[in-house]
């Protein structure tokens, strides 16, 4: 059909334009030029011969991975009449809510600045720069006085905003009717129901093997594990992103995980990437930001207190401080409902040529932010690679967990999905909790905002994040929340309800297959 052809042409044109500015394009050009010296490249069939050369040498695969990455991350070209904010978030009331929430955060940060008389940003004196450079690898030993700093917001503050989210055109009556949602989220977003979830997560069904379950000591490795590892090694040798993404839906062997994630996220440590990271490090040395103190405080409060992650404290500073200075992160705001905060150079208020973003990457960290990085430290030990992986994970997934949007992987949809699933699986429990005023979402919200980091053992967490990468969706978190609480909530049910006959739900569900019981 005419329309589909032109849509495809538009997508191709957009991807080509994006890739043209990339390092890969320059490399392909160089390779094509260099290949002209090869005897098998003939002038009369130049185009086909170069294509063949690219295929054999693996460059076509690299290009394929780059295209796949673009398709996975960036939304499809929007309607020509749609304004840019429509791509960020199509629903106006959600845009407004996000705007108000951002304003609150900015006000809070500003008041912290004025109260503590600390500037948002300043250039470090030379002596201080030298000192920081010397202890770059052991910033954790520093014990600055952070008692006056407080996190800009915590997940529970954000939850209150989401609870109060309303569509002004929706029937938001006070009286309970079939229209009101039983949970805390009151916006009518479309979430997948059980049959749709089963179809979407088909690889997690009972008939397919899973790492994390079918590789336990009781199960003989010949049944699943050995073959799965062998396939994993093959996928890595082929260097195919799409195949890796499909493969990892059943979990990744520990030994292969770091490479698989890098392949799926299309991260390869080129010299340019290391150079870029070093430049970010220089930026950290030169300028001191207020958000640095927020990061310090957050790491000290969360990761340093965690049994699994305290050893990585220094890595966390090295990643997060650089992350704040990385202007390439600004690109993701094209499809994020959030917008980067703005400021003006001192004394130049209102002059557009002196307008800057603050922090340079536009992301203000909240309480628990460092926990997004911590699990990755188990996989990557080289700082620039660790940094690249984290940055890619953030601009693909984590940003959705703390911004208000109608996206199916956005936090609002995940909350609604969780509540819907819990109502379906444990309706009596759900009802009971509502009656006693303990809405389940209040308990599980913080797990989800952190993508379960810090709430699950690391090996289990990494298996969960395998699925996030595999399905390119955060919906597994809602399913995870709905199945994991079965143990917690069942306990609570018995604890709160001593008089009634308690019925424990009898369904056999493993933690990783919430939809497994047919």
């Amino acid at each position, binding site marked *: *059909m005419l329309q589909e*052809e*032109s849509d495809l*042409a*538009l997508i191709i*044109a957009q991807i*080509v*334009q994006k890739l043209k500015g*990339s*390092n890969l394009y*320059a490399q392909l*050009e*160089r390779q*094509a*030029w260099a290949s*002209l010296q090869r005897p098998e490249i003939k002038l009369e069939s130049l185009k086909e011969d170069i*294509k063949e050369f690219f295929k054999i040498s693996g460059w076509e695969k690299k290009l394929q991975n780059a295209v796949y990455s673009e398709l996975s991350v960036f939304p499809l*070209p*929007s*309607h*020509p*009449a*749609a304004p840019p904010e*429509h791509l960020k978030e*199509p629903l*106006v009331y959600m845009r407004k809510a996000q705007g108000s929430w951002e304003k609150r955060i*900015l006000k809070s*940060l*500003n008041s912290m*600045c*004025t109260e503590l008389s600390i*500037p*948002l*940003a300043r*250039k470090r004196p030379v002596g201080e720069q030298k000192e920081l450079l010397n202890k770059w690898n052991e910033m954790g030993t520093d014990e600055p006085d952070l008692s006056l700093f407080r996190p800009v917001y915590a997940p529970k503050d954000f939850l209150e905003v989401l609870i109060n989210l309303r*569509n002004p*055109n*929706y*029937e938001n009556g006070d009286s309970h009717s079939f229209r009101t949602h039983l949970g805390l989220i009151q*916006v*009518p*977003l*479309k979430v997948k129901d059980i049959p749709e979830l089963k179809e979407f997560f088909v690889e997690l069904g009972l008939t397919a093997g899973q790492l994390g379950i079918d590789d336990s000591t009781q199960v003989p490795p010949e049944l699943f594990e050995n073959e799965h590892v062998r396939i994993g090694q093959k996928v890595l040798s082929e260097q195919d992103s799409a195949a890796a993404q499909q493969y990892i839906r059943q979990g990744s062997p520990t030994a292969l995980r770091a490479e698989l994630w890098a392949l799926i996220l299309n991260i390869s440590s080129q010299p*340019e990437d290391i*150079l*870029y990271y070093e*430049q970010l490090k220089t930026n950290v040395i030169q*300028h001191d930001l207020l958000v640095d103190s927020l990061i310090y405080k957050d790491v000290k409060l969360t990761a340093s207190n965690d049994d699994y992650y305290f050893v990585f404290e220094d890595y966390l500073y090295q990643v997060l401080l650089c992350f704040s200075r990385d202007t*390439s992160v600004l690109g993701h705001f094209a499809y994020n409902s959030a917008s980067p*905060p*703005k*400021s*003006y*150079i*001192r004394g130049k*208020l209102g002059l557009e040529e002196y307008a*800057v973003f*603050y922090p*340079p990457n536009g992301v203000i960290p909240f309480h628990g932010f460092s926990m997004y990085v911590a699990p990755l430290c188990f996989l990557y030990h080289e700082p620039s690679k660790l940094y690249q992986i984290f940055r890619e994970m953030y601009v693909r997934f984590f940003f959705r967990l703390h911004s208000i949007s*109608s996206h199916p992987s956005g936090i609002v949809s995940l909350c609604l999905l969780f509540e819907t699933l819990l109502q379906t699986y444990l309706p009596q429990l759900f009802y009971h909790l509502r009656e006693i005023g303990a809405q389940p979402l209040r308990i599980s919200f913080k797990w989800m905002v952190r993508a379960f980091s810090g709430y699950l053992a690391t090996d289990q967490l990494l298996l969960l994040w395998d699925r996030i990468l595999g399905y390119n969706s955060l919906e597994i978190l809602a399913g995870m929340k709905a199945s994991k609480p079965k143990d917690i909530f069942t306990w609570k049910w018995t604890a709160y309800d001593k008089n009634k006959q308690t019925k424990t739900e009898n369904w056999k569900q493993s933690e990783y297959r919430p939809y497994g019981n047919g």
Partner: protein
Amino acid sequence: MSRVSVPCHVKGTVALQVGDVRTSQGRPGVLVIDVTFPSVAPFEHTSTHTPAKWVTCLRDYCLMPDPHSEEGAQEYVSLFKHQMLCDMGKVLELRLILRQPSPLWLSFTVEELQIYKQGPKDLGIWFQVSPTLPASGQYAFALQSPSMTFPKWLSHPVPCEQPAPLLEGLPDPSRVSSEVQQMWALTEMIRASHTSTRIGRFDVDGCYDLNLLSYT
């Protein structure tokens, strides 16, 4: 490639409802929007011409997949000539009939309705499902048939040419494949093999002294 916007006048929406609008409890589930074209000559009654009549050109076109949820609630939609059931050559007036069966919404409509002349793309009708109101559209475009001076802009046959990109400024996709071939021939197209990972500067001339954040 250029689209030419056709000036149109969108009349106010008319709700279709049984009974008295003021006293009945329910909200209307059907809306009608009439669109007239001021540039089209008024219809003349003469005995030699076929009288104007309404023709359905699109039937039951779904805008929102699930009428009770937000999916597609504020999307931009395009409709093209090839989707129409009848010849759009001689249109005097358009009527959009919208249906929203779900009682959950307070109101619904379409906004930013625009009609475009046929360029290399055929006649397009673009509109946004209203920003405040979701709609589930089942559209019957009703047409009035020929007057003597039928508008030429709708009557051009659709040439089957290469689809052009919808946005200006993007490279023509057919050029993409030929570029590898041209690369060696057009030596002046060699760019410096610089990497694009420009180290992004966030400061202004080395200065990044900030006092407070600004917001409107």
